[in-house]
């Protein structure tokens, strides 16, 4: 298995193609690159990812030879490249603006580098034809750059920089000028060409999606430093810091204090430290906490508190839902105002109100189990959670979060829990999950295939939950202002200490 995967960085015997050794670059007093050491291996598709001004372009320009490191050395195939001027390096660059020569045809643009090498004319022609074929530009060979589209220009720039067969190809935001659809296609094309030619590619981009798609490894940069170098899946699933987690993809971050969950005394840790602050379902083995929870849960479905209803007597209100709750399934119920109107006005016409609630058809098995679980969830949950991991005490009035695969931490460490929206479930009823929080849907970002729900918790924290839209839009039942539960498993979040 490991042999067939391309991962030279895991092989200690593999010689890196490029080595940065304690490279620092300063412009005046500004430090663009701060003492960085890392390796890039042959045939890699290496992405430098970061926000603008993080030093990624400087890194690339040092490789191309347009900047020299202030300190440290850069080795290409074991040789220090500092004394080699850009026109003698076996490195070519594809510029962000493409930098196509506007006075030359597509063919002459591609042939430009080859002609400088004083190759015989027939060899140049053959190589140019090869490049035109590779980038599917045969039809446009005679045109000038201003006579072709942006996507074609991008391919000319790629063909031109590949024509000399460089050891290393640098791509500076190569797809930045293309529209979204074209960019996606071109990303795959780029990977294809990289594979076909076997050239080492280093791409600079601020677009994390692009970096994730094309690269074999991604280096996330911040402020002149590389924060993490890893494969795209590692970067996404196991970011080493909140910065990386936040930069790559969408994430909800919870900051809090970590407590180790002592085996054998699961609820004890939580009880001892948090009972006063936390009337949460977590330690709700006592029935009171449950009843505190349930009326609200039911009220949201059945009887919302209506401030304008004249019968604002609080006493019957909790009793009613309880009664309602007893019936396994219920249809739409009149609200307080409706009941009051009936009693005061319509009773004379229609007769006294019968308290038999209207019933839905008998529930299906699935529904029945779902319903029945509701009151049992909390105790069941505490029993089901495997031992180990930590709890994160993150906000007053909110249950602590449980993260099962956390690193070894001392009690009281400040941590962040990074949670990807697609790992968060959303439902109208309390799900059977290790972590479940109640909130209200504030916003729904509908992306067609996915919907991202922005759920505001009672303390104001926003959580993003993403669902694949496997059903047609009319059949999705969660909408704006709905009271919902967001939930995730004990291993969904990543615990970060920095």
């Amino acid at each position: 298995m490991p042999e067939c995967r391309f991962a030279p960085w895991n092989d200690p015997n593999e010689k890196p193609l490029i080595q940065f050794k304690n490279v620092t670059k300063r412009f005046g007093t500004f430090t663009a690159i701060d003492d960085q050491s890392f390796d890039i291996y042959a045939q890699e598709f290496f992405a430098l990812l970061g926000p603008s001004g993080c030093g990624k372009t400087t890194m690339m320009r040092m490789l191309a030879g347009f900047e020299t490191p202030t300190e440290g050395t850069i080795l290409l195939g074991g040789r220090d490249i500092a004394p080699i001027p850009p026109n003698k390096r076996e490195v070519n660059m594809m510029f962000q603006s493409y930098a196509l020569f506007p006075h030359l045809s597509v063919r002459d643009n591609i042939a430009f580098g080859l002609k400088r090498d004083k190759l015989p004319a027939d060899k140049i022609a053959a190589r140019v034809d090869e490049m035109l074929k590779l980038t599917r530009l045969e039809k446009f060979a005679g045109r000038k750059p201003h006579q072709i589209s942006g996507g074609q220009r991008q391919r000319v720039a790629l063909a031109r920089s590949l024509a000399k067969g460089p050891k290393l190809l640098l791509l500076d935001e190569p797809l930045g000028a293309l529209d979204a659809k074209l960019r996606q296609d071109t990303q795959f094309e780029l990977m294809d060409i990289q594979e076909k030619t076997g050239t080492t590619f280093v791409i600079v981009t601020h677009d994390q999606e692009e970096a994730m798609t094309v690269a074999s490894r991604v280096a996330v940069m911040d402020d002149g430093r590389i924060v993490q170098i890893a494969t795209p899946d590692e970067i996404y699933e196991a970011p080493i810091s909140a910065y990386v987690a936040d930069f790559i993809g969408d994430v909800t971050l919870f900051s809090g204090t970590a407590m180790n969950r002592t085996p054998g005394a699961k609820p004890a840790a939580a009880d001892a430290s948090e009972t006063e602050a936390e009337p949460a379902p977590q330690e709700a083995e006592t029935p009171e906490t449950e009843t505190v929870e349930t009326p609200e849960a039911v009220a949201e479905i059945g009887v919302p508190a209506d401030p304008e209803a004249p019968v604002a007597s609080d006493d019957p209100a909790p009793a009613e839902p309880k009664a309602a709750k007893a019936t396994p399934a219920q249809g739409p119920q009149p609200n307080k105002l409706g009941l009051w109107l009936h009693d005061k006005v319509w009773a004379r016409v229609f007769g006294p109100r019968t308290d038999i609630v209207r019933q839905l058809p008998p529930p299906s098995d699935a529904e029945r189990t779902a319903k029945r679980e509701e009151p049992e969830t909390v105790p069941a949950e505490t029993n089901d959670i495997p031992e180990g991991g930590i709890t994160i005490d993150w906000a007053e009035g909110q249950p602590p979060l449980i993260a099962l695969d956390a690193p070894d931490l001392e009690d009281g460490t400040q941590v962040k829990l990074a949670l990807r929206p697609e790992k968060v479930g959303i439902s109208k009823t309390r799900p059977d999950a290790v972590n479940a929080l109640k909130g209200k849907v504030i916003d729904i970002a509908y992306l067609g295939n996915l919907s991202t729900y922005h759920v505001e918790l009672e303390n104001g924290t926003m959580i993003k939950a993403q669902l694949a839209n496997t059903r047609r839009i009319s059949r999705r039942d969660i909408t704006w202002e709905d009271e919902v539960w967001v939930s995730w498993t004990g291993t969904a979040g990543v615990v970060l200490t920095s």
Partner: protein
Amino acid sequence: MRRVALIIVPYLWLLALFLVPFAIVLKISLSDIELSIPPYTPQLDLSEGWEGVKAFFAALDFENFVFLTEDDLYWKSYLSSLQIAVISTILTLLVGYPIAYAMARAPNHWRPTLLMLVILPFWTSFLIRVYSWMGILSTEGYLNQLLLGLGLISEPLMILNTNVAVYIGIIYTYLPFMILPIYSTLERMDDSLLEAAEDLGCSRLTAFWLVTLPLSKNGIIAGCFLVFIPVMGEFVIPSLLGGSQTLMIGKVLFEEFFNNRDWPVASAVAVILLLILIIPIVLFQRNEQKQREAEG
């Protein structure tokens, strides 16, 4: 209707300020000299009706143009003007290109200042500037004094009233017309093109030759025409800085008009000059057109 109204404005302008004066000059060039006011005949007299118009056109002839071919002063002046215009255009280009290049490469915050310095001489009267060159170039002028003072020469140089002085004057006067169009093309050029050329194996010099120069071609052409066309008819500089041996058609034209009071011959000289200049003017227009198309 509105489009017609819009288009008619520039055409009226052209008609009033170019075609009508040109028609008058053409008419005078076909007339004969006479001691009167105005100093030529025939005059169009509409009081005699159709007969008068017929007589007027019958009196016009190409005598003056024939005369221009008979006296070798004229074609020699044309040739000499052409020579001076070509040489000074080349010299202006050689001086102006490096200046434009340096301006375009200068740091951004410097450029407005440099541009200002190029335009600044226009704030002084052209005549005064040419006169001051006389002060610099004359035998007792500042240049000779400086060179004598430095011991570089033992006898003052004879520069004023020679073709050298004319070239100096022309280069000095027309330099901004060369610099500005070249600067504008160079400034627009993307620096990454040079980096790309270097990245693909060019040295700095070949990169200049293969990228910068071709890309500034349009500016060079525009600048050359802007210098060549007015220098061809230049009068002030040769008459103030040049000597008796400096033959330029502008000077001849002036002398015909004001010294000989031979308006018809002077007009014929002007018409021929215009016909000669139509070729470069058309070429210039075509270059501008092409440039606009390439950008659009």
